[in-house]
């Protein structure tokens, strides 16, 4: 009963945006023109030189934008400086100006870091469609309801990785590897639908333990052994 009473509230808490990190993966990003401190430039001119980590924020954000940039900055400092990438912080709010974005860069003391670019664009809707980013205007204070999103774009302009939420250094490292087109092994973790995993990996300890799948794998040999014994024992031997 309590749950039923709560249901509309629970529904209201459901985010309006998609939290699926697979959407638009391996799709090309829209080659829009952005304006940075150096002037106008197409995205393709940036990613053809170095792959991009793209994040979308706005300067009046009272929500996740600042924590997102703070976490991103902290994690980037832990990454090997020899790794090649450009971090493009792009405003998705049409009201933001380049000066607003430069002010944001100064607040985070990133204005002198050559790996970081702060920019605005008049073609932001085109970009949003190509990456599956759908900010929704919320309330009268010119705020947006949106996810904390990082988009990894490789040198061919393809979206190779998406990270939603405030993520750790390891996740960011995996993104940097993928945007540089290095093979990243992956394997689905056990879940309730997957009853016969060969091994059960525990992400907390990093250890593998045998699963039901190994038992399934041994079934053909076990059944054959039983079958051979049953046939052999029940047969009438006409020994010479």
């Amino acid at each position: 009963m309590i749950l039923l009473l709560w249901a509309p509230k629970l529904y209201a808490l459901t985010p309006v945006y998609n939290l699926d990190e697979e959407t638009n993966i391996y799709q090309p990003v829209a080659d829009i023109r952005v304006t940075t401190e150096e002037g106008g430039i197409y995205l393709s001119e940036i990613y053809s030189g170095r792959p991009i980590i793209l994040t979308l924020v706005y300067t009046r954000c009272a929500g996740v934008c600042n924590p997102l940039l703070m976490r991103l900055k902290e994690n980037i400092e832990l990454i090997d400086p020899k790794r090649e990438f450009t971090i493009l912080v792009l405003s998705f709010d049409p009201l933001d100006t380049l000066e607003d974005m430069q002010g944001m860069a100064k607040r985070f003391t990133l204005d002198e870091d050559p790996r970081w670019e702060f920019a605005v664009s008049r073609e932001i809707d085109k970009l949003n469609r190509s990456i599956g980013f759908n900010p929704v205007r919320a309330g009268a204070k010119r705020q947006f309801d949106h996810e904390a999103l990082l988009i990894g774009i490789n040198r061919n302009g393809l979206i190779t990785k998406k990270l939603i939420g405030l993520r750790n250094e390891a996740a960011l490292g995996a993104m940097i590897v993928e945007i540089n087109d290095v093979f990243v092994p992956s394997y689905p973790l056990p879940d309730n639908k997957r009853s016969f995993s060969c091994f059960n990996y525990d992400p907390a300890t990093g250890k593998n333990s045998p699963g039901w799948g190994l038992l399934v794998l041994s079934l053909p040999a076990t059944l054959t052994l039983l079958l051979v014994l049953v046939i052999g024992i029940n047969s009438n031997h006409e020994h010479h």
Partner: protein
Amino acid sequence: MMERTTLARTTSIWIIAILLLFILSVVLGIIMRLSQGGVISQSPVVFYSQMTTHGFTMIGIWFVAGMVGVNYLMQRYVSAPVKSNIFALLFTIIGVVLLWVTTFVGKFHTGWTFLYPLPFKIAWAGWATPLFFVSLTILGVGWLVWSVSLLMAIFKKYSITRALAWQHFGKNPSFETPPFILITVITLIGVITCLLAAVLLIVLFFAEYFSSGTFVNDPLLMKNLTYFFGHTIANEMLYLGLATLYELFPEVSGRPKWKTTWYVALAWNCTLVFILTAFFHHMYMDFVQPESFQIVGQVASYLASLPAAVVTVFSVLTLIYRNSIRWSLTNVLYFMGVAGWVIGGLGAVIDATITNNLVLHNTLWVPAHFHTYNAMGNVLFSLAFFNWAANRFAGIGESGGANRLKIALLLVGGTGFLLMFYLGGAYSIPRRFNIYPMEFSLAASFARIAAVFAAVYLAAVLIFFWDILRKCLKLLTYSR
């Protein structure tokens, strides 16, 4: 007597059907190499449909070819089953027709290993996926019933321990198990095991297909089961061919029959154990498979192939060395087949060595080695049996001139065709590419040359087919 005539007639129908399907599959292979060589142009879907058909048909026909030979020769020792043989023939015909419908009409094109989850990534007619598994089920049921009935026929006369020749491990065994029976039993146990793996695999595929997303398979388990079935059956069918070699090679050479000794018994018993774990070498690239399994895969690959090969090669060489041999097409084919089996086996062992596999994995080295022990190994074992059986059915001798031509065409065509695969492997050219990018500058040339040599090989097969067909039809049209 009636049973024996029915068995001979069924065998001759099998032989004609197998050779017909072989010719069609070789033609598909030539078309694929021409396509890779840029001589003809076809869409990727058509190419991969052909590749799936080619792979599955070849595995299927040369497995049943071995079974046909073993079933026919078994009547020398036990009451050979006939009904299950006819049952398997009918199920094989239905299964193959449905399989070809899924690939050629439905455009199903996962490759013959149908590696999970490819069959569910529908890039073909929606009905082709369930129909593919239905065709596999029909083939699997037919072959499983056949294998079990052959084993039952042997166990009626030989106890388990005698069928496995365990009495030969002691001194002065009172009973001798014929090598043919030993190898057949060892192989049938392996065949039943891998067919049961296929049954489990199909059940799991169907479970996911009909679960509407509530049941999802574990990719590692599915890959393990796929190669438990696929790798094992590809090896066991060779051993079926070897069983016929052990029975016929000394006989047609005019030499005394081979006897089972302790080392022959030991080698084949070892083969039974190791062949069932060698498939782990297909998982070298699967990083979630523990390292211990990978090591088992490498060790078992060595141990599965070496004892049987050493004993067989030793037996064949001692039989022909400084002995007066009555050479005929049958024993020449067996002799060439052993050479092809050993060369292909060495290629396989090289690839199954983990450090080498890092370089050779999924290059043309892989089709190089398995085409060697099939096209120039197992196929020759079966052709030798077909030739021997057809002559027997027709009651006529062999023609010398045409035999030399057949052998020459087989050798030249087969060697040239395989050499292009090996060179491709040495140049790290990837396998399963329908067209080659510019980076692999020699790949297309190798493919074109391979197609020419394969056509020469096909010419030999056509001559074989014509000769064997005439002889088999004599039996089939003969009214009792």
